[in-house]
Protein backbone atom coordinates (compact mmCIF):
# COMPACT_ATOMS: atom_id res chain seq x y z
CA UNK A 1 0.00 0.00 0.00
CA UNK A 2 1.22 3.47 -0.91
CA UNK A 3 -1.27 5.38 1.23
CA UNK A 4 -1.62 5.01 4.97
CA UNK A 5 -4.51 6.71 6.81
CA UNK A 6 -5.18 6.85 10.52
CA UNK A 7 -7.67 8.48 12.89
CA UNK A 8 -6.54 8.46 16.50
CA UNK A 9 -7.60 9.62 19.95
CA UNK A 10 -3.93 9.50 21.03
CA UNK A 11 -1.30 12.22 20.39
CA UNK A 12 0.14 12.11 16.86
CA UNK A 13 3.86 11.73 16.21
CA UNK A 14 5.66 12.56 12.93
CA UNK A 15 8.15 9.68 13.24
CA UNK A 16 5.85 6.87 12.08
CA UNK A 17 4.58 9.01 9.17
CA UNK A 18 8.13 9.69 7.97
CA UNK A 19 9.07 6.03 8.37
CA UNK A 20 6.06 4.98 6.29
CA UNK A 21 6.83 7.23 3.32
CA UNK A 22 10.64 6.77 3.24
CA UNK A 23 11.60 5.06 -0.03
CA UNK A 24 14.90 4.35 -1.74
CA UNK A 25 13.58 5.78 -5.01
CA UNK A 26 12.67 9.08 -3.36
CA UNK A 27 14.86 12.12 -2.86
CA UNK A 28 12.23 14.23 -1.12
CA UNK A 29 9.95 13.96 1.88
CA UNK A 30 7.55 16.77 2.71
CA UNK A 31 6.07 16.81 6.20
CA UNK A 32 3.12 19.00 7.19
CA UNK A 33 2.16 19.29 10.86
CA UNK A 34 -0.97 21.18 11.83
CA UNK A 35 -0.98 22.61 15.36
CA UNK A 36 -3.67 24.15 17.54
CA UNK A 37 -3.34 27.96 17.65
CA UNK A 38 -4.11 30.02 20.74
CA UNK A 39 -6.47 32.36 18.89
CA UNK A 40 -8.81 32.59 15.93
CA UNK A 41 -9.68 35.91 14.29
CA UNK A 42 -8.21 37.70 17.30
CA UNK A 43 -10.23 35.77 19.87
CA UNK A 44 -8.45 33.61 22.46
CA UNK A 45 -9.10 29.86 22.06
CA UNK A 46 -8.88 27.62 25.13
CA UNK A 47 -9.08 24.21 23.46
CA UNK A 48 -10.50 22.34 20.47
CA UNK A 49 -12.64 19.26 20.03
CA UNK A 50 -12.61 17.14 16.86
CA UNK A 51 -15.14 14.52 15.87
CA UNK A 52 -15.42 12.46 12.69
CA UNK A 53 -17.78 10.21 10.78
CA UNK A 54 -14.95 7.74 11.12
CA UNK A 55 -15.51 5.11 8.39
CA UNK A 56 -16.37 7.78 5.83
CA UNK A 57 -13.49 10.03 6.90
CA UNK A 58 -11.07 7.15 6.37
CA UNK A 59 -12.52 6.46 2.92
CA UNK A 60 -12.30 10.13 1.93
CA UNK A 61 -8.70 10.42 3.16
CA UNK A 62 -7.82 7.29 1.17
CA UNK A 63 -9.47 8.84 -1.91
CA UNK A 64 -7.32 11.96 -1.47
CA UNK A 65 -4.21 9.79 -1.33
CA UNK A 66 -5.26 7.85 -4.45
CA UNK A 67 -6.02 11.09 -6.32
CA UNK A 68 -2.62 12.58 -5.41
CA UNK A 69 -0.85 9.40 -6.48
CA UNK A 70 -2.54 9.61 -9.89
CA UNK A 71 -2.02 13.34 -10.33
CA UNK A 72 1.53 13.84 -9.02
CA UNK A 73 4.75 11.90 -9.29
CA UNK A 74 4.82 10.89 -5.66
CA UNK A 75 5.62 7.58 -4.08
CA UNK A 76 3.86 7.37 -0.72
CA UNK A 77 1.54 9.32 1.58
CA UNK A 78 0.87 9.02 5.29
CA UNK A 79 -2.16 10.94 6.56
CA UNK A 80 -3.01 10.99 10.28
CA UNK A 81 -5.77 12.98 12.00
CA UNK A 82 -6.40 13.33 15.72
CA UNK A 83 -9.86 13.15 17.31
CA UNK A 84 -11.19 14.23 20.69
CA UNK A 85 -10.10 17.13 22.86
CA UNK A 86 -6.88 19.00 21.98
CA UNK A 87 -5.07 21.69 23.92
CA UNK A 88 -3.12 24.65 22.47
CA UNK A 89 0.05 23.46 20.74
CA UNK A 90 -1.18 19.89 20.20
CA UNK A 91 -1.26 18.33 16.73
CA UNK A 92 -4.57 17.68 14.93
CA UNK A 93 -3.06 16.55 11.62
CA UNK A 94 0.16 15.18 10.14
CA UNK A 95 0.70 14.60 6.42
CA UNK A 96 3.89 13.12 5.00
CA UNK A 97 4.54 12.71 1.25
CA UNK A 98 7.56 11.23 -0.47
CA UNK A 99 8.55 11.71 -4.10
CA UNK A 100 11.60 11.33 -6.33
CA UNK A 101 11.78 15.16 -6.51
CA UNK A 102 10.61 17.86 -4.10
CA UNK A 103 8.32 19.93 -6.35
CA UNK A 104 5.75 17.16 -6.78
CA UNK A 105 5.85 16.34 -3.07
CA UNK A 106 5.15 19.98 -2.12
CA UNK A 107 2.25 20.19 -4.61
CA UNK A 108 0.69 16.92 -3.46
CA UNK A 109 1.00 17.91 0.20
CA UNK A 110 -0.72 21.25 -0.42
CA UNK A 111 -3.53 19.73 -2.48
CA UNK A 112 -4.14 16.91 0.00
CA UNK A 113 -4.52 19.40 2.85
CA UNK A 114 -6.90 21.56 0.76
CA UNK A 115 -9.02 18.49 -0.02
CA UNK A 116 -9.02 17.42 3.63
CA UNK A 117 -10.53 20.76 4.54
CA UNK A 118 -13.17 20.47 1.79
CA UNK A 119 -14.27 16.84 1.80
CA UNK A 120 -13.30 14.83 4.85
CA UNK A 121 -16.15 14.54 7.39
CA UNK A 122 -14.28 15.82 10.43
CA UNK A 123 -15.64 18.68 12.53
CA UNK A 124 -13.88 21.06 14.86
CA UNK A 125 -15.42 22.84 17.83
CA UNK A 126 -13.60 25.84 19.28
CA UNK A 127 -13.93 26.62 22.98
CA UNK A 128 -13.62 30.24 24.11
CA UNK A 129 -13.88 31.90 27.52
CA UNK A 130 -17.48 32.83 26.76
CA UNK A 131 -18.75 29.83 24.79
CA UNK A 132 -18.13 27.32 22.05
CA UNK A 133 -18.77 27.12 18.32
CA UNK A 134 -18.65 24.53 15.53
CA UNK A 135 -16.20 26.01 13.02
CA UNK A 136 -17.53 27.01 9.57
CA UNK A 137 -21.10 25.90 10.29
CA UNK A 138 -22.73 29.27 9.78
CA UNK A 139 -22.31 31.92 7.06
Amino acid at each position, binding site marked *: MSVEVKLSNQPLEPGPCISFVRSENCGAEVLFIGTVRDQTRGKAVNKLFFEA*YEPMAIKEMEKIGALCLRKYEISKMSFHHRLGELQIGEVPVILAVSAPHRVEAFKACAEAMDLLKQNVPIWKKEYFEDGEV*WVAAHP
Partner: protein
Amino acid sequence: MHCRVMYFGITRDYTGKKEELVVLEEKSHLSDLHQLLKSRLPQLDELKSYRLAVNESFAENESILLKDGDVIAIIPPVSGG
Protein backbone atom coordinates in the same frame (compact mmCIF):
# COMPACT_ATOMS: atom_id res chain seq x y z
CA MET B 1 -38.71 0.50 4.88
CA HIS B 2 -36.23 1.85 7.41
CA CYS B 3 -33.19 4.02 6.87
CA ARG B 4 -30.71 5.11 9.51
CA VAL B 5 -29.94 8.82 9.66
CA MET B 6 -26.74 9.98 11.35
CA TYR B 7 -26.02 13.44 12.76
CA PHE B 8 -22.62 15.02 13.35
CA GLY B 9 -21.21 18.28 14.63
CA ILE B 10 -23.77 21.03 14.78
CA THR B 11 -26.60 18.85 13.46
CA ARG B 12 -26.09 16.49 16.40
CA ASP B 13 -26.51 19.52 18.66
CA TYR B 14 -29.77 20.30 16.80
CA THR B 15 -31.20 16.80 17.27
CA GLY B 16 -29.62 15.86 20.58
CA LYS B 17 -28.86 12.41 19.17
CA LYS B 18 -26.24 10.69 17.06
CA GLU B 19 -28.64 8.76 14.87
CA GLU B 20 -32.21 7.58 14.44
CA LEU B 21 -34.26 5.17 12.36
CA VAL B 22 -36.60 6.84 9.87
CA VAL B 23 -39.57 5.03 8.31
CA LEU B 24 -39.95 5.71 4.58
CA GLU B 25 -42.28 4.46 1.90
CA GLU B 26 -40.86 1.86 -0.45
CA LYS B 27 -39.12 3.41 -3.48
CA SER B 28 -38.43 6.67 -1.70
CA HIS B 29 -35.78 8.86 -3.24
CA LEU B 30 -33.05 10.62 -1.34
CA SER B 31 -34.91 13.87 -2.13
CA ASP B 32 -37.96 12.55 -0.21
CA LEU B 33 -35.86 11.89 2.88
CA HIS B 34 -34.20 15.29 2.45
CA GLN B 35 -37.61 17.02 2.48
CA LEU B 36 -38.57 15.09 5.61
CA LEU B 37 -35.33 16.09 7.34
CA LYS B 38 -35.79 19.73 6.35
CA SER B 39 -39.29 19.76 7.83
CA ARG B 40 -38.05 18.18 11.06
CA LEU B 41 -34.91 20.31 11.29
CA PRO B 42 -35.66 23.85 10.13
CA GLN B 43 -32.25 24.86 11.53
CA LEU B 44 -30.66 23.22 8.45
CA ASP B 45 -31.55 26.44 6.60
CA GLU B 46 -29.25 28.39 8.91
CA LEU B 47 -26.16 26.39 7.93
CA LYS B 48 -23.68 27.80 5.45
CA SER B 49 -24.06 24.57 3.49
CA TYR B 50 -24.45 20.85 4.03
CA ARG B 51 -24.24 17.67 2.02
CA LEU B 52 -25.85 14.27 2.30
CA ALA B 53 -23.94 11.01 2.32
CA VAL B 54 -25.44 7.60 1.55
CA ASN B 55 -23.61 4.55 2.86
CA GLU B 56 -20.45 6.54 3.57
CA SER B 57 -20.19 8.31 0.20
CA PHE B 58 -21.30 11.81 -0.77
CA ALA B 59 -24.56 11.66 -2.74
CA GLU B 60 -24.01 13.16 -6.18
CA ASN B 61 -27.72 13.69 -6.79
CA GLU B 62 -30.89 13.30 -4.81
CA SER B 63 -32.86 11.37 -7.39
CA ILE B 64 -31.27 8.07 -6.31
CA LEU B 65 -33.59 5.44 -4.86
CA LEU B 66 -33.06 4.53 -1.25
CA LYS B 67 -33.29 0.95 -0.06
CA ASP B 68 -34.07 -0.62 3.26
CA GLY B 69 -31.08 -0.39 5.58
CA ASP B 70 -29.36 2.51 3.84
CA VAL B 71 -27.38 4.79 6.13
CA ILE B 72 -27.75 8.49 5.41
CA ALA B 73 -25.61 11.13 7.08
CA ILE B 74 -26.07 14.87 7.14
CA ILE B 75 -22.64 16.38 6.58
CA PRO B 76 -22.52 19.99 7.81
CA PRO B 77 -19.54 22.11 6.64
CA VAL B 78 -16.41 20.15 7.48
CA SER B 79 -13.54 21.71 9.43
CA GLY B 80 -10.77 19.15 9.82
CA GLY B 81 -7.07 19.96 9.93
